[in-house]
């Protein structure tokens, strides 16, 4: 087989080109830390990566929603706890007041104390989370309860009747609020407190007892509401864990595709470097040989 100079040269050039292409590929991969720069590097991987990125974003959104819902519910939990404490306190005062040994003056003090409890209760009913009223239904910017100027009554519930939900997974949602109407109005909390106050001011022990009974009923309701809130908080906690696990899973699959195996890449780089050097050394040696060196 005849071998000509042009053949040798073009073969050598082509080999060098191919080797240096692979070398460049390995270098870029290592520098960027990513195994995939372009779809053609790994078409199937690129497809999967797109979907994984979307899934990860989705999981993050679920977690965000769940966190928000949890915070809302935890606020409600704390507030309802304070509500039931105040109700207990009021009940204690009612019992005290109903006692025959208590004087009128002492009853007047107790009435004033109830006055304070009422103001505190209004404050609790108007609780906020992240700037939004949590007991106002869907009207999160509307103050649900307002104490009127002479502090003799609370204005009717000004909030909405709607529920607020958070999406926990796919199409599953969880209601995260209680309407103030349900907690405070339906349980006649303010009414009972005002009645108790009046009863103390007028020494009406019958009325005090009636108020006490109402307050007791309200207390039980609030406690059971709180229990429901507690179980919702738990449920959200579980859902969050689930989503975090899924997110971790997707992230590691994405990492596999994009970052790949660093050791493999480094090995490939070394291998290509050697191949490139070899191509150059061999080519230089061969192309340097010529009959001219040997003709006298």
């Amino acid at each position, binding site marked *: 087989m005849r071998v*000509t100079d042009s053949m040798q040269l073009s073969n050598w050039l082509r080999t060098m080109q191919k080797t240096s292409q692979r070398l460049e590929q390995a270098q870029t991969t290592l520098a960027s830390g990513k195994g995939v720069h372009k779809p053609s590097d790994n078409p199937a991987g*690129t497809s999967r990566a797109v979907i994984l990125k979307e899934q990860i974003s989705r999981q993050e959104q679920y977690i965000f929603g769940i966190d928000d819902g949890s915070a809302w519910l935890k606020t409600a939990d704390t507030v309802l706890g304070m509500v039931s404490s105040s109700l207990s306190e009021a009940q204690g005062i009612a019992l005290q007041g109903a006692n025959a040994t208590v004087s009128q003056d002492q009853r007047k003090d107790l009435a004033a104390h109830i006055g304070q409890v009422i103001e505190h209760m209004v404050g609790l009913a108007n609780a906020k989370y992240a700037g939004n009223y949590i007991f106002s239904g869907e009207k999160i910017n509307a103050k649900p309860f307002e104490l009127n100027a002479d502090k003799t009554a609370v204005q009717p519930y000004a909030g909405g009747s709607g529920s607020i939900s958070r999406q926990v997974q796919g199409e599953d949602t969880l209601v995260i609020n209680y309407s103030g109407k349900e907690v405070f109005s339906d349980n006649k909390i303010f009414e009972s407190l005002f009645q108790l106050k009046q009863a103390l001011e007028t020494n009406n022990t019958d009325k005090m007892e009636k108020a006490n009974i109402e307050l007791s009923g309200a207390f039980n309701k609030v406690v059971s509401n709180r229990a429901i809130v507690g179980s919702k908080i738990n449920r959200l906690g579980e859902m969050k864990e689930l989503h975090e696990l899924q997110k971790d899973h997707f992230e590691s699959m994405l990492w596999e595709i994009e970052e790949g195996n660093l050791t493999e890449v480094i090995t490939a780089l070394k291998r290509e470097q050697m191949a490139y050097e070899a191509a150059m050394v061999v080519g230089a040696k061969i192309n340097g040989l010529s009959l001219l060196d040997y003709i006298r």
Partner: protein
Amino acid sequence: MSQFNGLYIAISGMNAHKAAMEITGHNIANVSTEGYTRQEAVFVPYNPQQSTLFRGQIGRGVTIEYVRRMTDEYLERRIQNEQSSAESWKVKAELLQNVESSINSLDLQGRFNSFWEAWHGLAMDSTVEQNRFEVQQQATSLINILKISRSQLEQIESQIDFTMNSEMERVNILAEHISKMNDEISSNIRKGLQPNDLMDRRVGYLKELVGITGASVIYNEDNTVSLSLNISTSGGPAEELKLIDGIYFQPMPSDAQVITEGGKIFGLKEIKNNELQYYYTTMDDIAKSLATGINDLHKTGYNKEGSTGISFFKEPVSGVRDLELIPEIKGYLDKIGADGSSPDETGKIAMEIFNLGDGFSRSISNFLGHIGTATKNTMIQDSSHQDMLQTMENLKAEVSGVSMDEELANMMRFQRSYQASAKVLSVMDEILETLINMVR
């Protein structure tokens, strides 16, 4: 027969070998010339004549009958065919890599993700203006990215059109050159000359022409070549154009389309008519689904003013180019309808829009996967055709290529032979001198 026959014999030897050295020198000088076919002297003895010195015939020395061009026509044709495929795949690989890097750098899925996230934020609290603003901003961003992507494709399409036009011009120029060469070559050969270098150049032009058009070369009896193309003018039916017909050539009209199955033009057309169209359609479909999906939901949504039935994107949407927010939403954030009809449904519509995200990631994933696979395939084909071409060029070089060592060895041989003939000349001269001096 002449007394000086011996002299002439020696001189013929010197001349022939001197010429052979010149031919060798020509080969060596052209070792770097692309497409150069080496030449070999063909030594042939002169016809013998009746000798006056003895009964019988005597030779009259040597001459170079002709200079052989060391070529293999069969290989030339195979190389032309391979060139046609190689050029086609090469241009396809280049174009698709172009498409791939423009689309890839835009991070379509990332934009979509931000868009869906904005809707989720709005679903969580539809009373806050910031959340509406975010939705409007992300929507605008998404529309821009989709439009930029499509216009990148359109730019590549105009690049293709531009390249096709310049290639057509080149075809006409090459055809003219080749037809002129046909004329020179055939008339030279008729005169008994060997236009080796002209033929090399013609091979080069033909290779380029076939690489562009994918057409077949016809070798005529009179040492000319012909080449025909199938063209259609102004969208009419296909007709044959005798681009090169021996010494004549017919340029392509400027509005003609070349109909071909190979060559660079084929590659350009395939990408323009198949790949690019598919990508346009895919993107337009995504835009349509986006607009329809969101509008259908948004129209059932209630906005801050309590009104409903408003679209989000302008209708109708036939593709990416039509994608626009309705002017009301561009100007007035409160028009964005995030809520359902009942008080229990605050943020419901926004959440349902967020839930649309899954489907779109599948479309984008398919889109990018397709681009990746198509690009990878053309790159593989390109590489293997380059290798194929290389192999054939090597085969050709085996026959036609210059080997420095071989030429130098020949040089030594011819030099020695020249020296030997020169010696013969000087001996013949002495013989004659002896003869002449005898008479004194």
